């Protein structure tokens, strides 16, 4: 290794905010499942274990030089894509809630699209870094879009609109930091936002409001439970008030009216628990965390690091925005997780790995006198 790492440069704020978010998530998940006994089977306990595993992984990744990733970028990219393709095979994959996005590995099931987010960031960063100023050329620009476009398309077809939009957001932030032609950038942005148009179509042009009324009147009319859940989420949040209903959560959660409250709708559930004060604290924590992530872009020593940091920031920000947005009824329900908080190993491990990469960028930003020639 030519460049050593300095734990001195490790960002403790990033770690602390992450720990806060994860702790928040564990408590919320435990509550969402009815504050059961703390046994290994409990989803909250499991989430805590996933978190610890992930944290270890994060620290390990942080200690490695991120530039190592650039060399193997294509391998990593293909490794990320492979399970996505595998999902398309009829024999693989588990359908949960109408969407085939999980691969079952015995006790835990993996969501390849989560990992693919990180591998795609790495590949795109490596590509941008390798092309440099030549990124202004149309050919390279198109390749950059393809790199993101392939996993995005597969995920979109799963179907998982939310995750495919995350890919779009990743591309958008990374290119924001590097692209120099506005025309091309916005053109690309428009293309990347294609799934969003689909979502917008459903959200705005279908009479959701009316459907929600129907759904709240008779939940049986909406077997998918989507409209019903939107309603429940909003009620859960709205009835939370300033301080919330405490650890047990609001009535919507206790009566199990709010479904997927440990993953996609954990924000709504937590709102019922902690109220406006708690949720503003959560937002502040996110703000600080992503702010710190953005700083990594500034201090990264090379173009590759910058790009990586930008992509990771984009993913964090976008997922947090969209998830909370859908919980509070600003955005359509797209089914993406709240980073570090939602239950699920794939999600939390991916984000922790990404954070490991960020920490690595920070720790490897200085050339060390004693090593360099």
């Amino acid at each position, binding site marked *: *290794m030519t460049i050593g790492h300095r734990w001195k440069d490790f960002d403790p704020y990033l770690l602390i905010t992450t720990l806060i978010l994860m702790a928040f998530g564990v408590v919320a998940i435990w509550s969402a499942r009815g504050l059961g006994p703390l046994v290994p089977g409990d989803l909250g306990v499991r989430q805590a274990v996933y978190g610890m595993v992930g944290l270890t992984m994060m620290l390990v990744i942080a200690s490695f*030089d991120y*530039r*190592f990733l*650039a*060399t193997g970028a294509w391998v990593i990219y293909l490794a990320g894509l492979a399970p996505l393709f595998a999902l398309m095979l009829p024999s693989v994959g588990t359908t949960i809630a109408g969407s085939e996005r999980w691969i079952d590995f015995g006790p835990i099931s993996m969501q390849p699209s989560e990992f693919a987010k990180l591998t795609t960031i790495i590949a795109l960063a490596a590509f941008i*870094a*390798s092309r*440099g*100023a030549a990124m202004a050329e149309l050919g390279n620009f198109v390749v950059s879009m393809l790199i993101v476009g392939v996993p995005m398309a597969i995920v979109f077809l799963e179907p998982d609109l939310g995750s495919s939009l995350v890919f779009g957001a990743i591309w958008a*932030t990374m290119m*924001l*930091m590097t692209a*120099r032609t506005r025309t091309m950038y916005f053109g690309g942005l428009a293309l990347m936002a294609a799934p969003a148009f689909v979502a917008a179509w459903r959200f705005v042009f279908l009479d959701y409001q009316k459907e929600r009324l129907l759904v*709240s009147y008779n*939940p*049986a009319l909406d077997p998918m439970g989507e409209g019903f859940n939107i*309603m429940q989420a*909003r*009620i*859960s*949040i*709205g*009835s*939370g*008030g*300033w301080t919330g209903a405490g650890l047990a959560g609001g*009535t*919507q959660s206790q*009566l*199990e*009216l709010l*479904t997927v409250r440990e993953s996609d709708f954990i924000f709504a559930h937590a*709102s019922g628990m902690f*109220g*406006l004060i708690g*949720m*503003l604290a959560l*937002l502040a924590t*996110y*703000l600080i965390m992503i*702010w710190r992530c*953005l700083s990594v*872009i*500034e*201090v*990264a*020593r*090379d*173009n*590759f690091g*910058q790009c990586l940091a*930008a992509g990771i*920031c984009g993913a964090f*920000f976008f997922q947090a*925005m969209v998830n*909370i947005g859908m919980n*509070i*009824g*600003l955005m359509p329900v797209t089914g993406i997780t709240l980073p570090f908080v939602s239950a699920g190993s794939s999600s939390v491990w991916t984000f922790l790995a990404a954070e490991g990469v960020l920490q690595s960028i920070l720790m490897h930003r200085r050339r060390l006198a004693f090593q360099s020639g």
Partner: protein
Amino acid sequence: MAQTPRRHRLRFDPPTGKKKAKRRGLPMAADQLFLNRRMMVARSALAGGFMVLAGRLGYMQVVDRDHYRNEARSNSQHYVTTRAPRGMIYDRSGRVLSENRTAWEVRVVPDLLPAKGTLARRRVMDTLIAELELPEALVIDHRKCPEQSQPGVYAQVAMLRGRVGDEVQRSVEAITKLAKSNYLVLLEERLTIEQAAQFREAGRTLPGLQVMNILDYELGNAPGSATRVAIKTKVPRDTALRLASNALYLPGVEVDGEVLVRDYPAGPVMAHVLGYVGRISPEEYAERVNPVGTKLYEIEDYLGKAGLESKLEDLLRGEKGGRWVVRDVNGVEIGLVPGTQAIPPKPGQDLKLTIDLELQAAASRALAQGIRYSVEDRKEIGNVQEGETFAKSGAVVALNPKNGQVLALVSYPHYDNQLFVDGISQAKWLEYTDPEQGQPYVNRAIASAQPPGSTLKVFHALTGLHEKKITPETIFTCTGAIRVPWDWNEAQGDIWPCWKKEGGHTNMNVTSAIKESCDIYFYNLGVPRDKPAGASEYLRYYDYNIEAKSNGQMNYFDGLGIKLIHKGLTEQFWFGSATNLDLDGEADGVAPNEAWLRRSNGEDWSAGATINTAIGQGYFQATPLQLAVNTVAIANRGTLYRPTLVREVIGSDDTVAQASTQVLRRLTIDPAHIELVREAMRGVVHDDDGSANHWFNKTTGLNETRWPLTNPPGEEDTILIAGKTGTAEVGNRDEDGSYANQHAWFTCFAPYDDPEIVVTALVEYGGEGSTYAVPVVDQVLRAYFEMTGRRERGLVLREDGQPEADPAVKPELMPVPGSTVNPNQD
């Protein structure tokens, strides 16, 4: 490990901070400027995005909180109502007339059934049809039949169903009427396999005619797909439980084991009084919106639709209870909403009626027998005139003259009110409203206004005495008829006979005129000393002998005139307006006068109309109840009571409210006059020349009493009865002044000195009152005195005190048909 290519490192590395660049005083690199600008964008997006989220969150959780809290409540908290048991109805001695039975009911919510045309739906439907044994029905879907061919198709259908003559047209009208408010018109509810095949075949050529299962009919005729449709009530328990346990495989099917079904154990004899309950119709539901508090009705509730059940709905209904419950996402009830309490339902109030079921049943049987006797006897005697109608219907009213309480209120034929609760078929309904069948649905005791004939004479007599037009000593001579000359021809004129045409009654005073029911006397009493417009002379008449066609003495009328008659009938007595009984559908009757005739017919009043009114015919009409109510005033010597059906109202907390006696009016007539008329009425029954005293049995050749049951020959302790017969001639008047049809009336009270019961009987188209109404009353009085212990039980009433629900014939209670010498006695 490969290093990042050098050229890139040069361009991006080191990313010196702004501060450093400034410190050095060097211009910032283009890259650095670019990066700074983009970082600004990113940070703005981040801050802006989170501000929007925070803003929205604050709005939802603080500003809009109450809205969401309410929604949270409405979302998980449901108000569940508990039905209140409907009040029971008892007769005056506590026999149950109307009660609630818990039953299993199967309902279908069309919306929740599997989609139309799917196998799953077929399976659900077939299961229901098989389990509930739902029959095939004959239905007309008028939407599938072009409008112009509808009457033709309906007529053909009627003929296929065996209707002939007028029935066809009536059936067409009935279907057309039903088609206005129904998608599908149900014609037959229960087809046999042969019938089904036959009508299916016919349906090929008759558009709209369909054979379908009753379930398909119910669903096809449902007002909306979200409304529950009751498919079958009173489902056997094991069937219901089997269906309920398979609920998972029967989406859209509801099984309810707590439906309260109204039961009428007293049977059809009480149908006209009690009425019935039925499911609330969408219109009724919309009308009876509950102002505040608990719901009055829910869409599957029953409410009173006729009779006391309808009139006293508010008392009987009770109040729904309810509770706020919390339900989870599967609709499973978790428990009460914290801090709330279940409100128990308030049962409806129980009613204790004034009617005695034993007497009611006896009166009902007496009437049924009386009607049958009238038909058989008149046919036996022969001499059936053209246009003569035979009796099908009648009414009996028994009142307590001390307070106006109704002891029996019978209308015949009966209808079965239970059918209306369980669901009546179209065919049965048509039968119940068919005039050919005597319109069983009509409560004749209160709704059938008919001329009361000579029974009205007692009221005229009192008016005449009161207005001093006659004194007890006033004598009029009856020669069998009078001739009222035409103004333009003194030698000709209208002949008005007495019922006793041959020879007449000779000299009559008011007592004998009532006893023998002399018409001539009352013509004299009725017609005033008056000079009609354009007439040259006062109103007058000649004594007339019909057989000899000879005129006798000329007399001037000097009677009451229609103004005083009307005044007496409406201001002393209570004719021409309803008595305000606790039942809907009471007829006002008609107490005619000049103004009334002009208003209703546009005609001018004539002396002839007065003559008719004087003997209770012509325009005058009264219901059996009205006649009974007015008889009460004579019986009790001067007080008109409002007839009442409810004796006690028993609250759910066992508090008993006695119904009060309500006086309609007190007569201002001199008690001596009333006493005089009462004595005359006693003479009607007990004097040898009384019109209801005896009859000549041609079989035995003896005069026989008309009261063999109440006062059997040889029994001591005779019960004195006072009454008045009436034979009201109806229909077209023949040339000789007689009519083909007569209503038979009798009204009376007993015992004479201290009357306990007033009985009025009407046999429509029955014939002479003395012959055909009196035996009915005799039986009713016997029943009453058996009931009160003054006559031995067993002859009319059962010895065990149980009411006779079945109007089985006890032939010995009626005279033998054909043995009557038709005395044409009024």
